[in-house]
């Protein structure tokens, strides 16, 4: 018997209509833990470098993590892996909610989809009974509506459904996969699902998930719950309300949006409105939010309440979390009421809340600049809000200009030409980023933006504060109970970090320190994504309940596989390196490792070079950002080096 994990994957080939239950290799658990780690291994083994996102050979993997569905609070993430149509690299997308635990209760760690169905279908997994079912009646239906229709059809309200909307069906490059209160949005994975003719996966499970050392495991879980309670009662002082607690930023509970609205940029990530947040706005937005928010809600087995049910009068109810309440609002220079209204449609259509509003604002900017004309927007309303609704409809149907914008700002700009490329200014590796433009380069953030395989800052940062507190006294106070650090030296790095002067950005933390800090933050995310743990209780907030000191105990007690801190750390290094290798195999090189050009006003080419050199060295990459043969062999991944050598990847750079 396997513990923690199930030990079986579900293999579904939609071209053949075949369904197989396949036992997995326990040795892979030791090496890659599970979740993203084992996904990466499968992608390496089975998806050749030249495979297009919309090829039958591309896989679409829905994976639980190693701890998902066990009693560990917050272990509920579904990690979706495939080739992204937008970046052409590995898509690295995840969602919370209830899907992954339910999949494990049904008796599977992963669902691996290959091939394509000619007709629209959905997959129904009920313990040992798995069916590919006709979905022609769900064609064009919204993602939330689809989930409800399937639950009604199968007569069980406890079924968990991951579904795409119209955007996924029409292969919009930033289509999401929606699942109740959660969504896997980044990288256009919904488009791959649509391309495969798969409208939804419905799952219901009533089997056990076992752990190897029950008493120890429960002791660890109880400690985590106690610490969550403690952190709830002891918010971090000196940071904005949104960063004080655990969970993903508490956007649904908190109304104070001064930090986002005045620090982040509006429109096509252009304008900073430092004076935006006033008492009147606060009163108005408070009223808007409280009027539409029915209830704060959680993911599976998690005491945090990061999501909410939203009922805007006259619109169908939907669920929301985090920052998407503001992305449309700010892209359109509008207000919160508009944000909640358009997010309802966007959720049903199933689009990414970062990319979609930016693509729309980008389109309108091109109109303003005369690169596009009103003829490109037949029948478009005059008001900005109306225009956003208009563009959303065009994009998800790929009609007219919508067909261009549906590929995201990078591809749209190149297809439109006429200087439109200049307006695609907020992407990394062809992927839209958080709308944020700052002054002084922050060395830690420089590295995370440039090198992260997630190509998405919010899923890389965490642990280490974004800024130094004003005085050494405050910083020393902060590090006092900072037991989550993997090494005491990080406390000194932080205590010494000054807001101004010699010991401040961009030269402090030094390139060596910055690389170590990023290494730590990144590792924690990789561990979370292998275990299926929510970053909101681990790698994302300051002083979280899960950390490198208790994770090895969790893994050991859950699986019965004895793992030390070094083993878990090395496993995360292995997966991080394999993710890099997957992208290197697909053509990614040093020249791609850069932030958006205008992310910081002040840039430092020599320092940036030094930062990247240091980071690569620490990671065991060569100066092109390619994992070296030595580091790969040390990680027991000689097979990667072998392929690199065969393909001449080392010699051709």
């Amino acid at each position, binding site marked *: 018997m396997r513990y923690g994990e199930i030990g079986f994957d579900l293999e579904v080939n939609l071209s053949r209509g075949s369904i197989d239950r396949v036992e997995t290799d326990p040795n892979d658990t030791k090496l890659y833990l599970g979740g993203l780690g084992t996904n990466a291994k499968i992608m390496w083994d089975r998806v050749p470098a030249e495979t297009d996102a919309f090829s039958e050979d591309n896989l679409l993997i829905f994976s639980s993590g190693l701890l998902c*569905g*066990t*009693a560990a*609070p917050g272990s509920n993430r579904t990690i979706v892996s495939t080739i992204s149509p937008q970046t052409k690299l590995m898509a690295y997308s995840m969602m919370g909610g*209830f899907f992954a635990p339910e999949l494990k*209760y049904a008796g599977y760690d992963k669902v691996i989809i290959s091939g394509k169905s000619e007709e629209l279908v959905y997959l129904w997994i009920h313990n040992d009974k798995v069916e590919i079912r006709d979905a022609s009646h769900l064609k064009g239906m919204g993602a*939330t509506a689809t989930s*409800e229709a399937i639950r009604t059809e199968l007569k069980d*309200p*406890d079924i968990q459904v991951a579904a795409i909307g119209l955007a996924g069906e029409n292969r919009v490059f930033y289509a999401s996969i929606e699942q*109740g*209160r959660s969504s896997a949005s980044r990288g256009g994975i919904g488009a791959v699902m649509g391309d495969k003719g798969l409208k939804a996966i419905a799952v219901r*499970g*009533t*089997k*056990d*998930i*076992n*752990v190897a050392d*029950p*008493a120890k*495991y*429960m002791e660890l879980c109880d400690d985590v*719950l106690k610490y*969550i*309670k403690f952190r709830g009662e002891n918010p971090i002082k000196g940071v904005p309300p949104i960063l004080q607690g655990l969970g993903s930023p508490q956007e649904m509970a908190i109304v104070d949006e001064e930090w986002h609205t005045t620090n982040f940029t509006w429109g096509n990530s252009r304008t900073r409105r430092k004076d935006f947040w006033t008492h009147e706005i606060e009163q108005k937005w408070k009223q808007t939010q409280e009027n539409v928010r*029915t*209830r*704060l*809600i*959680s*993911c*599976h*087995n*998690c*005491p945090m*309440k990061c999501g909410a*049910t939203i*009922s805007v009068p006259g619109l*169908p*109810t*939907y*669920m929301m979390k985090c920052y998407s309440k503001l992305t449309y609002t700010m892209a359109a220079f509008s207000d919160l009421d508009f944000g909640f209204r358009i997010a309802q449609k966007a959720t049903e259509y199933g689009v990414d809340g970062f990319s979609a509003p930016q693509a729309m604002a980008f389109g309108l900017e091109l109109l303003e600049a005369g690169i596009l004309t009103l003829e490109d927007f037949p029948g478009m309303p005059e008001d900005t809000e109306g225009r956003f609704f208009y563009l959303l409809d065009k994009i998800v149907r790929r009609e007219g200009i919508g067909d261009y914008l549906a590929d995201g700002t990078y591809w749209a700009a190149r297809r439109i030409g006429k200087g439109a490329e200049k307006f695609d200014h907020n992407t990394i590796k062809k992927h839209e980023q958080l709308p944020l433009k700052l002054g002084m380069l922050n060395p830690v953030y420089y590295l995370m933006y440039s090198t992260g395989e997630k190509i998405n800052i919010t899923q890389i940062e965490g642990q280490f504060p974004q800024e130094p507190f004003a005085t050494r006294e405050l910083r020393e106070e902060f590090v006092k109970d900072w037991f989550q650090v993997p090494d005491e030296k990080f406390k000194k790095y932080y205590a010494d970090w000054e807001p101004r002067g010699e010991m401040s950005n961009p030269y402090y933390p030094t390139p060596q320190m910055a690389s170590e800090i990023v290494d730590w933050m990144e590792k924690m995310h990789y561990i979370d994504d292998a275990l299926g743990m929510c970053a909101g209780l681990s790698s994302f907030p300051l002083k979280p309940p899960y950390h490198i000191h208790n994770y090895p105990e969790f893994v050991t007690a859950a699986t019965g596989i004895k793992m030390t801190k070094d083993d878990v750390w090395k496993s995360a290094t292995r997966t991080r390196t394999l993710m890099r290798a997957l992208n290197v195999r697909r053509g990614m090189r040093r020249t791609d490792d850069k932030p958006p050009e205008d992310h910081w006003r002040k840039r430092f080419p020599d320092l940036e070079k030094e930062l990247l050199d240091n980071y690569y060295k620490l990671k065991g990459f060569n100066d092109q950002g390619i994992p070296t043969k030595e580091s790969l062999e040390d990680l027991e991944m000689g097979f990667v080096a072998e392929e690199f050598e065969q393909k001449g990847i080392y010699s051709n750079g």
Partner: protein
Amino acid sequence: MAKVKKIVKSITIDADKCNGCKACEVICSSWHATPRYSSNNPARSRIRIVRLPLRDIYLPVYAGEYTESECTGRDKYIIDGKEYNECDFCRASCPSRDLFKEPDSGLPLKCDMCEETPALAQPKCVEWCHAEALIYVEREEEVEEDEQPKLGDIEIGLGSMIDKYGLQQVLDTVARMAKP
């Protein structure tokens, strides 16, 4: 009949506070696993959340008595504009639904308030509900002394098997299984 004092344990459910995380289901099934905490499976939990997010219905219900036959009523209740089925509030393990039955055997499940020696301060589901939707209440009541001997687990289990399949079939099965 003699009167005796008895501690009555109950859980008050503040459904407005439930956020549907199912921690109660996870910890209940985990606590009742053998060996303790060795597995979890909400389908075995003795507390279940009737959870219909789009209708804003979050209703934790814990397992009560087993019943042989379903009732005839299926009334609807509308509370605060939300429509509930009578069954949503019902604690019975009943033939009309899968709720509160062991998924393998179909045997009924019943909340035992995590009875344990020494006693827990509160049932595990209450302890794990950080939303404070579950509130543990103990009160003292005077009741008539129970003259019925307390049934053991096997007797309760067999009783329901007999209800389900008939005495003869159970006897035949036991006899068959007892053969070496």
